[in-house]
């Protein structure tokens, strides 16, 4: 009975959303703001990937808020799980040889791919959040395949703190030299080159480190607790 009611409720919600969205034409025409970003984005920020120029440059302050939300979630999870009393690691049977070797071979490739994604965030699709999530999934693979391996809690916390600190310090530098928080004070260079777009790659590297270590910390807390 409860199941039927919940499915009925979902159907009603889906109907409501689809009816309200049916009037909006799909894809075109673009809004004024969207057209502005597409026309002027590359020239103003120097980033070939317009999504990145919006996320880090035009809406950089929102990104700082997003990073803070993730940070608070990770802190809260760590506090709750630590307060409930950390148990000793249960004895788990080791993974099979195939899984162990596969994880050890795949792990460096995943880390390199994640690093590539956030370093090239201003050139190709992707960025700090995506790269960090990919790196965290690499660590998840290590936790599942090589059970006895543990990451250093100190190194993870250090990467997280330094990433957040770098973001805010760069924002403050922009406040001092450019007049507003997170202004792009470094030379923009030519678009489509690795060293271009001013502060965008630096901020994305900071976000990549921060998100990667945070998500790894969440998984680490949960696995150690179970």
């Amino acid at each position: 009975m409860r199941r039927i009611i919940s499915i009925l409720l979902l159907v009603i919600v889906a109907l409501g959303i689809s009816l309200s969205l049916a009037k909006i034409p799909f894809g075109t025409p673009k809004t004024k703001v969207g057209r502005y970003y597409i026309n002027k984005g590359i020239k103003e920020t120097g980033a070939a990937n317009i999504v990145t120029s919006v996320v880090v440059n035009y809406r950089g302050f929102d990104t700082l808020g997003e990073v803070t939300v993730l940070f608070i979630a990770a802190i809260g999870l760590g506090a709750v799980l630590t307060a409930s009393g950390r148990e000793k690691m249960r004895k788990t049977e080791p993974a099979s040889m195939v899984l162990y070797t596969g994880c050890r071979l795949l792990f460096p490739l995943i880390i390199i791919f994640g690093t590539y994604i956030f370093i090239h965030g201003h050139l190709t699709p992707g960025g700090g959040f995506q790269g960090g999530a990919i790196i965290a999934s690499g660590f998840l693979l290590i936790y599942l395949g090589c059970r006895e391996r543990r990451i250093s809690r100190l190194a993870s916390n250090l990467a997280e703190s330094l990433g957040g600190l770098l973001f805010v310090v760069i924002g403050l530098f922009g406040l001092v030299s450019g007049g507003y928080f997170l202004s792009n004070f470094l030379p923009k260079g030519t678009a489509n080159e690795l060293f271009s777009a001013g502060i965008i790659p630096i901020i994305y590297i900071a976000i990549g480190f921060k998100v990667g270590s945070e998500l790894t910390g969440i998984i680490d807390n949960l696995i150690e607790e179970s």
Partner: protein
Amino acid sequence: MIFIVSFLVVLMLVGAFAASIFKDLISAVIAAALVSLIASILFYFLQAPDVAMAEASIGAALTAAIFIIAITRTKRHEE
């Protein structure tokens, strides 16, 4: 192209429905991860590769892992 997208959307609906009716919670989590995976493919078709990447790594991999870790600490089957 339209056939591929329709097939994926139907598969996504099947996955979402399966996630809500499965009694075995780990199967339900895997069905939910399937929904995320297909959503990321659809994002890629809609020319949003940034969102597709985030959806694939967070929605399909990390969320499923966190759910499975939580389920191993509680009961696997719903009553």
